[in-house]
């Protein structure tokens, strides 16, 4: 096998971690595991031991009442052991006994805790490629019943049961035929090694086939995806696509055949080895019977024990392979978890800032995004006055959004400080600091909750519905709400409720504005809030701007210069720095970059008076 990358946590460490996690989430589960292990092992031994006792009785002549007694006892023992096993874990492919649902609950709690962490960890992690990569890997720990914490717990249960069964069968057979146990153990080891090798070879073939499989999936989807229908029909692509499909399927078929052949070979070797074991067991036991060492009841018991022994042994050996895989998954998860484990701390910003706002100063701030070589902002020093209406303009990539993200502490400056009334904002508690900002971001996302909850971002029983209605009026969303049957209680999106509504781009921007207004924070940040609005709504927003942002510091980002004239000051970003700053008239008179850009845009409007900007 190729050299495996060294894992941070060993199997033993992850095993301990698993035990600790189970204890943390559901202490009783450990008791369940112990109980189920014992009942299952006993359940395996009962059908080995009791038939022997009965047959022993029969071969010595047999007393009717004794036979009946043993038969009933046999039934009772079966009922008790299998009953406990069944009720605790259940049987079959989808066990759903009492502890089985506890395993599921274990995963869910584990997943929930992790989601909470993901939702509260520092924002900059979310755009860090290294963390994203680790996050994607860590997700496997929540994939289902047989992955991560739940997977490992279930695997450990299986192995525990097999271990007890193994001890039981060994203690039965060891005196009469210890060497049979050795043969069986060797055979199980050989078959396990072989199946492990086969697994690796199969994996290799599958990896080689993977690109082809993606192709098949794509082509399958395309042939049955009707949105391709028009082009396929008009341009006569049907046979071309079918041809590609067949070709890819041929490749898959020949690769799959190789895998099937490996499986066939392996299972046949396994059958031969099992045959050898069977022959050895029967021959040795018959010899013992003839030699008078054992009777016919023991003969049958040993034959049955050997089969159970092999099965348990196999589960343990293969269990270790699985356990290692689970351990690798858990390792990935823990490596990710270690990275993000930085709880936010800091003081609460003073009440006065919440009530009256504050002056903000950028002091020589530089920043580059994780994994990027280039500075997104370089040596920016700038002061935002108390309750100022500030417009930020500039071309795409000039640093406008980065400036705002730093201000809102979605990112930390690489160097330099951001001061609020003279205090470095990093000293404040992050979550308390967030409370100072109401923001409309460029991309607007809604949650599959009611319209009201999407505005308050609080659960309905905590939402101030009156205030929601007011902000809806202010944001100009009331006409849309009036068309909804359930008004502000209408659920959004279709994830949870098929009656959920989807808003258009313009409506989403109005909703986001209402959201920012509802928060009633001293600072309000609007990042391109009119991009999806129609001309009338845009005009309305400009007219109401003063009213909306009354008594607040407002920061308004736009790449359309003409739309920022209602602000107190305009600052122009260029290549990660502040190029110009002043009122519209000042900047235009200055004849600098602002004036140049403004003229280009204005010219476009003159040529096409009624068109939109592109």
């Amino acid at each position, binding site marked *: 096998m190729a050299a495996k990358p060294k894992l941070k946590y060993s199997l033993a460490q992850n095993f301990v971690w698993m035990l600790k996690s189970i204890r943390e989430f559901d202490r009783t589960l450990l008791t369940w595991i112990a109980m189920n292990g014992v009942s299952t092992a006993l359940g395996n031994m009962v059908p080995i031991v009791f038939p022997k006792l009965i047959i022993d009785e029969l071969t010595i002549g047999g007393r009717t009442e004794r036979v009946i007694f043993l038969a009933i006892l*046999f039934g009772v023992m079966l009922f008790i052991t299998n009953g406990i096993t*069944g009720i605790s874990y259940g049987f079959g492919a989808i066990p759903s006994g009492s502890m089985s649902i506890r395993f599921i609950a274990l995963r*869910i709690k584990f997943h929930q805790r992790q*989601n909470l962490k993901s*939702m509260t960890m520092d924002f900059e992690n979310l755009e860090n490629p290294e963390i994203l990569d680790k996050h994607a890997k860590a997700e496997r720990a929540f994939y289902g019943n047989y992955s991560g914490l739940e997977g490992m717990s279930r695997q450990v249960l299986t192995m525990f049961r097999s271990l007890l069964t193994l001890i039981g069968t060994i203690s039965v057979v060891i005196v009469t035929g210890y060497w049979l146990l050795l043969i069986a153990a060797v055979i199980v080891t050989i078959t396990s090694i072989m199946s492990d090798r086969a697994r690796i070879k199969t994996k290799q073939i599958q990896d080689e086939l993977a690109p082809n499989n993606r192709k098949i999936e794509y082509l399958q989807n395309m042939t*049955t995806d009707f949105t391709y*229908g028009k082009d396929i029909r008009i341009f006569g692509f049907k046979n*071309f696509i079918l041809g590609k499909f067949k070709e890819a399927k041929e490749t*898959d078929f020949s690769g799959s055949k190789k895998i*099937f052949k490996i499986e066939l070979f392996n299972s046949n070797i396994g059958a031969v080895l099992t045959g050898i074991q069977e022959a050895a067991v029967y021959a040795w036991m018959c010899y013992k019977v003839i030699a008078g060492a054992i009777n016919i009841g023991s003969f049958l018991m040993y034959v049955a024990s050997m089969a159970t022994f092999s099965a348990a042994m196999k589960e343990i050996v293969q269990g270790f392979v699985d356990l290692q895989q689970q351990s690798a998954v858990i390792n990935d998860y823990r490596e990710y978890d270690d990275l993000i484990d930085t709880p936010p701390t800091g003081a609460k910003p003073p009440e006065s800032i919440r009530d009256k706002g504050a002056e903000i100063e950028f002091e020589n701030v530089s920043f580059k995004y994780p994994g990027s070589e280039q500075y997104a902002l370089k040596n920016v020093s700038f002061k935002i006055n108390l309750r100022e209406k500030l417009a930020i303009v500039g071309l795409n990539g000039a640093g406008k959004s980065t400036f705002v993200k730093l201000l809102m502490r979605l990112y930390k400056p690489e160097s330099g400080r951001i001061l609020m009334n003279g205090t470095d904002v990093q000293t404040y508690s992050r979550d308390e600091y967030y409370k100072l900002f109401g923001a409309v971001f460029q991309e607007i996302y809604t949650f599959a909750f009611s319209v009201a909850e999407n505005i308050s971002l609080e659960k309905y029983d905590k939402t101030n519905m009156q205030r929601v209605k007011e902000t809806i009026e202010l944001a100009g969303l009331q006409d849309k709400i009036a068309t909804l049957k359930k008004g502000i209680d209408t659920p959004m999106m279709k994830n949870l409720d098929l009656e959920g509504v989807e808003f258009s781009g313009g409506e989403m921007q109005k909703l986001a504005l209402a959201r920012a207004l509802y928060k009633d924070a001293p600072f309000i940040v609007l990042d391109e809030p009119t991009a999806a609005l129609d001309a009338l709504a845009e005009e309305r927003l400009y007219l109401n701007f003063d009213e909306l942002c009354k008594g607040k510091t407002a920061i308004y980002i736009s790449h359309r210069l003409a739309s920022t004239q209602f602000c107190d000051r305009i600052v122009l970003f260029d290549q990660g720095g502040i190029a110009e700053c002043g009122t519209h008239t000042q900047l235009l008179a200055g004849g600098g970059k602002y004036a140049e850009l403004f003229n280009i845009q204005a010219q476009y409007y003159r040529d096409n008076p009624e068109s939109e900007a592109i």
Partner: protein
Amino acid sequence: MDNEVKISKQFKNIFPCLRYFYGIAWKRDKSYFLSTILEIIVKGFTPFINIFIPKLIIDQLLGERDVNILALLISVLVLLNLAAAGANNLFTFLNDKYRVKFDNLFYEMLGEKCMRMDFAHTENAEILARRQKAERGGTDNTYGTLYVMTGVITALISAVITFAGTLYVVGRLSPLLLAILVAITIINMVVVSNLSKGSVQFYKDLIELNRKFGYYNWNLKDFKYGKDIRTYNAVPMITEHSDYYVNTEWYMQRKFNRKQNRFTTATTFLNSAQQALLYGYLGIQVVRRAITVGEFQMLITAAVSFATSLRNIVENFIALARTVEFMNEYRLFMQIEDTARSGTKKAEKIKHTIEFRNVSFKYPGAENYSLRKVSIKIEAGSKLSVVGQNGAGKTTFIKLLCRLYDPTEGEILIDGINVLEYDIDSYRELLSVVFQDYKLFAFTLRENIVGEKVVNKGDIISALDKAGFSERYEKLEAGLNTSVYKSFDKNGIEFSGGESQKIALARAIYKNAPVTVLDEPPPRLTLWRNTIFTIVLTNLSAIKRRFIFRTGSQAVNFAII
């Protein structure tokens, strides 16, 4: 009651489905049937190896103890078991092979059907839903495929063989035991079916709940929500909502679990009782010298096989009905009839005058007409711009022209002949269309433009040039072999919307058909001159912006819909 009606309906589909799927398989590969029959025989008789031979060994051990005979018996036992295992492995191998082969075939047939069927079907919501069901029921091994169906049938028939054999063995020596076993098995099945009635509803509820719960656990963790969640402190809201679902799910699981535990107890009791009765009853027979110890052992094994096979028969029969229910969707989908008319006339790739005469159209199932009494004559070689607001019928107009739909009333004529009289494939040769929602494929640039045809590279490049793509083309290292999208080629290129549209345009230009249709073309487009007839669709509200394109010397006619 409802359940019974459904099951009888399922049974009705069994034979048509068997005929349909095995009919196709028979045409493709007759060896499949041979292998299946052999598998049934082997599986049916395998249990008897371990019913008879251990008995003979025990008889020997308790009787003559002839070493030679014992050696022979052990050899026969081991070899037969080995042969059965080997045969089973071989059947697994063959079945896997056939599975891949037939899955491919049935998917290919489905794909072919989807790409060939009337376009009108493809925009029909009902057909769309049926396509999904067909995909599930004919190509997905978790629902139903030939592989699944054959597996069920094999298990069913081999269980019948085992059942008949063990019936004979047990019945000959102990008919009373048979009655007891049948009774216990029936009670067991009644218990299980009672449970499964409740479990169907439970799993349905659970799926719904899991879907919702998945939204919290998987969708919401998408980092795109990160900014809003943090700056608006949405965590408490999300957690509270999520907790609600977790609790509901836990409560539901517990409730179902309690019920299930009762059934588990009942079936465990029945199984234990069965074993106790078997051993007790047969033990007494031995004590009474009615049977030997060897026969005792044989009857125990046979009785268990008997009960198992009886249960297998019932379960697989139900499984067959369920599988067929899924598979029937495939069969019915494949039998959807095409109603679009296609004539036999071959259309010539030359100039044509096109005329819509009193054409009205409404979409299947729609109440309102999308087009009403449209009459327009488009002279050969002219250019027509069709403008109108969203939903005015521009795209429908084009779909009718492309014969993606047939008019509800009225007729479309080319050079005075109804288009329906032409063979549809040759008719479509007349058209080059760039749809508003055009699609590119994750193939090479060349394949996106010409498909599989082997053609002159220069022609493709000239088409790209006319589409305004040449500047971008120069920068492509792999030229025409550049993969579109990164799906299969990490050097593939995700072209921007504008660039993609130009590639789609090049595809249309390359086709060099007499009629060109552009739905919402890019602004500032130079219409190429050698086209005979062009239609440009434009949204009325964007008209000022769009009409920058230079149209050469020819005048553009307007038709406002």
